[in-house]
């Protein structure tokens, strides 16, 4: 089992009030799965994703990633996990505006201490795989939304992580770009990448093999209907 979250609680303190956002969330994901997490706005999807992504720590509960307890790791180790085991894709792409597509994709390799020559080779390869070999030197402002998101995917995958975490990746895309992106996700999944994707669009969730609903901080598994859309 690649992800194993059990009895996760997350409270936010607002003034003097304790606001519970995640309530006894347990989520087990096998290697190679493609999971969609669906739920209305404010239900706690991003909060859960941040915990899965080792960006945040739950108030209580346990979390094992590839058999390793991540909650007792320090910040440095968490950064190391994010760098090598996890890839992130965000709704608003989060590309560095002044850097070319290639430089954006190179960034995680810089942090991993990869030499310049190899960085460029690997980043070009990753961009080629998402179909952007001809736009490697374009700045984000010169790219369409769908292209920007593909740059983001190339960046997420360049360190060859086992898990891809996507928080509403199609939220800012038109339907044609969304479809293309979902085809790319399916391809990555076929190649063995475990994908966890947040969405509130049912037609996007339909691409996943497994759908998990979250409502008001509580999680429920949807059974058997994922292939029908």
């Amino acid at each position, binding site marked *: 089992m690649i992800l194993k979250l059990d009895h996760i609680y997350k409270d936010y303190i607002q003034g003097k009030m304790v606001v519970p956002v995640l309530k006894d969330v347990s989520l087990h994901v096998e290697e190679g799965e493609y999971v969609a997490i669906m739920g209305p706005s404010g239900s706690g999807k991003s909060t859960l994703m941040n915990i899965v*992504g080792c*960006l945040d720590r739950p108030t209580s509960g346990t979390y094992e990633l590839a058999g390793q307890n991540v909650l007792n790791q320090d*910040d440095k180790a968490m950064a*190391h996990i*994010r760098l*090598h085991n996890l890839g992130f894709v965000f709704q608003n792409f989060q590309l*560095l505006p002044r850097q070319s597509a290639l430089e954006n994709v190179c960034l995680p390799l810089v942090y991993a201490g990869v030499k310049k020559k190899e960085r460029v080779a690997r980043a070009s390869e990753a961009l080629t795989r998402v179909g952007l070999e001809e736009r490697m030197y374009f700045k984000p402002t010169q790219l369409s939304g769908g292209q920007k998101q593909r740059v983001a995917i190339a960046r997420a995958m360049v360190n060859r992580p086992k898990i891809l975490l996507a928080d509403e990746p199609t939220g800012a895309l038109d339907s044609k770009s969304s479809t293309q992106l979902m085809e790319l996700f399916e391809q990555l999944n076929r190649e063995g990448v475990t994908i966890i994707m947040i969405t509130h669009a049912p037609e996007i969730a339909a691409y996943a093999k497994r759908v998990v609903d979250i409502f008001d901080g509580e999680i429920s598994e949807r059974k058997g209907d994922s292939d029908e859309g």
Partner: protein
Amino acid sequence: MFENIRLAFQGIWSHKMRSFLTMLGIIIGIAAIIAIVATITGTNEEIKNKLVGSGNNTVNVKLSQGGYDYTIYSGDEIPWGIPAVTQETKDKILELDEVESVTTYSSRYLYDGVYYGTASVSSLMIMGVDTSYFSTCSYRMKSGRGFDQEDYDLYRKVLIIDDVAAKGLFKKENPLGKTVEISGTPFTVIGVVKKQSDFEPEISSIEDYYTYASDSNGLLFIPKASWPIVYSYDEPENVVIRARSTDDMTQAGQKTAKILNATITNSETNIKYRAEDLLGQAQQLQDLSNATNMQLVWIAGISLLVGGIGVMNIMLVSVTERISEIGLKKAIGARKGTILAQFLTEAAVLTSLGGLLGVAAGAGAAQVIHKVSGVAVGVSVPAAVIAVVFSTVIGVVFGFLPSVQAANLDPIEALRRE
């Protein structure tokens, strides 16, 4: 690291105007310091050259009494027990490592003056010199000839005068071949000399300037051999040595004075040889000018402080502007240290660049000061290097707080912002 520096330059370039304004405080501060230091260095060199005599390295070792030069005036009685300097003593002085050459002379201060026809000039210094005097003391023949061996061997009554005396006695006439009466004895002028380095004591605040003040009405030189014709045998003599290097001057002077003082047998008069320490005087003057200029450096330092605060301010703005960039970088695996290094590098590159521009501006300002006021300037390379290193340090110091703030940003909060 290189990646950080490249990114820093990219950032600075994409905000050209803002970066320049941020650097301005540093540029002005560094430029001011470089210009001030250049002026200090220039002035110090000038003081040293002027006072010590531009590489001439001569040291006067004169008789003194109670801290002042001991001068024999015409008509004075000659004190006993202060013998003329013997060849043996001269050889001893020449054996000193620091000494290159040595010359001795007897002298008189003439109030009553010398005569040429009806013209007379008083308050002159007359010296009985040996053959090495003019070369040791760096005189240049203006016209006529110097003393030769025959002048000494034949006790000729020949006279060399300096340009000041020439002007006083002869106005526009040619002095060569003219006869001048000194204490009733006629001497023939054979040459006119001039001090080689145009020594103009601009700084008259030092009490020791009597040395030059006494030159004012001019100098007369006669061969030492002819001295007893006018005055007497075995009179006390002053000594001039030439040191091997400027830095040897103090040592050479002191050692020579010691050797000479050992020959004095009269302890009643309290007359002693004393080496004038021009190097020490130069040092004093330099210290004085350094002290005033250091205050200017403090003022420039305040400008640097203000510049540093400006850098901190802009860096804080920059962190706020780039919150989501920082959040993203942390999300994809950048460590705290990585972010810290990135921002520190950016601040350091910004201020180092400011420092470089400041050095260039300061060197330019120094040239302008030189052109406008004629003050000597010397831009020193170590000062420039220190200035740039110092501005890098300013970047690191004042960039630290903003960088720590960036490094400690919570990535979730940062990504949440739009």
